[in-house]
């Protein structure tokens, strides 16, 4: 008996996808529609959080929770920003660059700050961020001692009130930084939306999951 094939019809043919709320949601919905997997409005999904269609089940969760849903098998696939994956590495497969939701993770300082390239950094740099893991790894690779202050929001405020010397934050257009009189001194990485998959789903329900991956991949390039 093959466990993968012997399952009930719902589980073996239906693929569940975790979608993030927030900035990536419109792009994710457009991609789902273009791939032909599901045509959903943001309103409908926002109201129900869980929508079942004939071939897919779509689950709406907070962006930072997408890897958890996928890693634990509650969703076969997930759409999530690379920035989230930097912070929560897991056992999932990162399969496709979905090419939307582009943004950069940057190191920014107040316009008036004397900080610039690495040669101007103090022996111990104080940095506020929502991305402590990524920031620490980046500074460590450059041999820079750093004190990371983890904040949940409004990171751009921290240097203005003297909490830190610099921030590491995500920016798409650079407008928020400019409005808060911050300038970019380095780029830590570039992020776009990614398609991730649960490791067991790829093995136990190979056909259905690979088919959905193929359609999404085609919707990106086609």
């Amino acid at each position, binding site marked *: *008996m*093959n*466990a*993968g094939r*012997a*399952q009930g019809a719902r*589980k073996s043919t239906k693929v569940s996808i975790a979608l993030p709320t927030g900035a990536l949601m419109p792009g994710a919905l457009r991609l789902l529609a273009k791939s032909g997997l599901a045509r959903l409005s943001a309103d409908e999904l926002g109201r129900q959080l869980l929508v079942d269609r004939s071939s897919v089940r779509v689950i709406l969760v907070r962006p930072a929770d997408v890897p*958890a849903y996928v*890693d*634990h*098998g*509650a969703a076969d696939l997930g759409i999530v920003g*690379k920035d989230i994956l930097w912070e929560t*590495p897991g*056992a*999932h*497969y*990162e*399969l*496709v*660059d979905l090419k939307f939701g582009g943004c950069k993770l940057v190191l920014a300082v107040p316009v008036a700050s004397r900080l610039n390239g690495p040669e101007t950094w103090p022996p111990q740099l104080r940095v506020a961020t929502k991305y402590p893991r990524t920031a620490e790894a980046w500074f460590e690779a450059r041999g820079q001692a750093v004190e990371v202050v983890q904040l949940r929001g409004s990171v751009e405020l921290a240097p203005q009130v003297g909490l830190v010397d610099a921030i590491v934050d995500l920016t798409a257009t650079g407008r928020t930084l400019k409005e808060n009189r911050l300038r970019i001194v380095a780029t830590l990485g570039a992020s776009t939306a*990614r398609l991730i*998959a*649960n*490791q*067991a*789903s*790829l*093995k*136990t329900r*190979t056909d259905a999951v*690979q088919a959905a991956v193929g359609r999404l991949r085609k919707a990106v390039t086609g």
Partner: protein
Amino acid sequence: MPGFRDRLPDEAEVLREAQESVLAEMRRWGYRHVITPMVEGTDVLELGIGAEQRRRLFKFADARGEVIALVGERTVPVARLVAGKLRSAPLPMRLCYAGPVLSTDDGRLHQRRETYQAGAELVGAPGTAADAEVIALAARCLEASGVKRYQVDVGHAEFFHGIMDAVKLPDEVKDAVRGALAARDFVALESLLEGTPLRSAEHELLLRFPALRGGVEILQAAGGLVRNRRSERALAELAEVQELLVAHGLGEVVSLDLGAIRDFDYYTGITFEAYGPELGRPVAQGGRYDGLLERFGRPSPATGFVVQLDLVYEMLSGAARPPALPRIDAAVAWSGSGLRPALRLGSTLRLFGMRAVVDTQARNEAEAKSWWRSVGAVNLIHCSSESTVSWTARGQRTRRLPPEQVAGRLAGGVA
């Protein structure tokens, strides 16, 4: 503390039962049980496990200042044992073990920092017959524990190594490719491979890694693409193992997975993972690690696996028909001069393999009924004198009968 928790009777009994059935199956295959300590010196563990696993060890210093760790797996301690105290025991050697292992993971969501594993190691046996033996044993262990639906994916570390030898890439790109694969990051892998001018069949195989899975036909398909001896030999071994597993009676549950991503620095040959239908992670995993014993001074081939008992429990409790919870067969109450016959009756029932609880205080028949309900037993026996016994089965009226007939009636399933 996140990641640690108590196991209450309903869970603990199923978990323990699963562990016992897995160990019993291993013993039926001639594996001898060993018990290694909960702690090991970090010098021992570091010989066998990678940097990432080392980081996840609970470490502390003992009174003499030596750094010791709570074990995160038991293959390395068993290797230490085989190369140490069992140095003069002849090979091949078959050993099995069970117990909790610890890791410093966050303990978020379902993540556990203390998990239960049972494992088996076959040391000193090279060749596909040994590979097939441990895979078959792993499958039979899952069945023995009560898992009915599972599949086993078999892969080969050398298939990957051969590809990496043959693929035309600068060394630093190869390292990056290894890193991307280990992180299962195919977006990074794709951009690494796209940036290089040379294209080869190996190139294509790497990009299609997660999809290189199927039946024996996948071996022919891959065989048409690889042109290096390491990968070709791996494919030949996979074909042999697949055939042997059919002989073991497991042809139906086995798939071949050439794109299995495992710890390629540790595994040297056939690897495998077992999956259940509704579980996001492998319930058992293992493979050949011919390099480990050498580091302990007794070079020998070896292969083995672990079963994740917590995941077995999840599969059993989530199954359409969960395992019957062990129930208490009889609550034996007494009043007046009934204590002595009650104690004798308890002994007799246990002799028949039944679970019996004898009350510790006297109760009349009405009080005994409410005590019976709180015990949750199937039958209530009440002894009020040497010769007067009443028996109530759940949902039935009370009957009087001679004490010597009670055990027979209960064991006969009349209840």
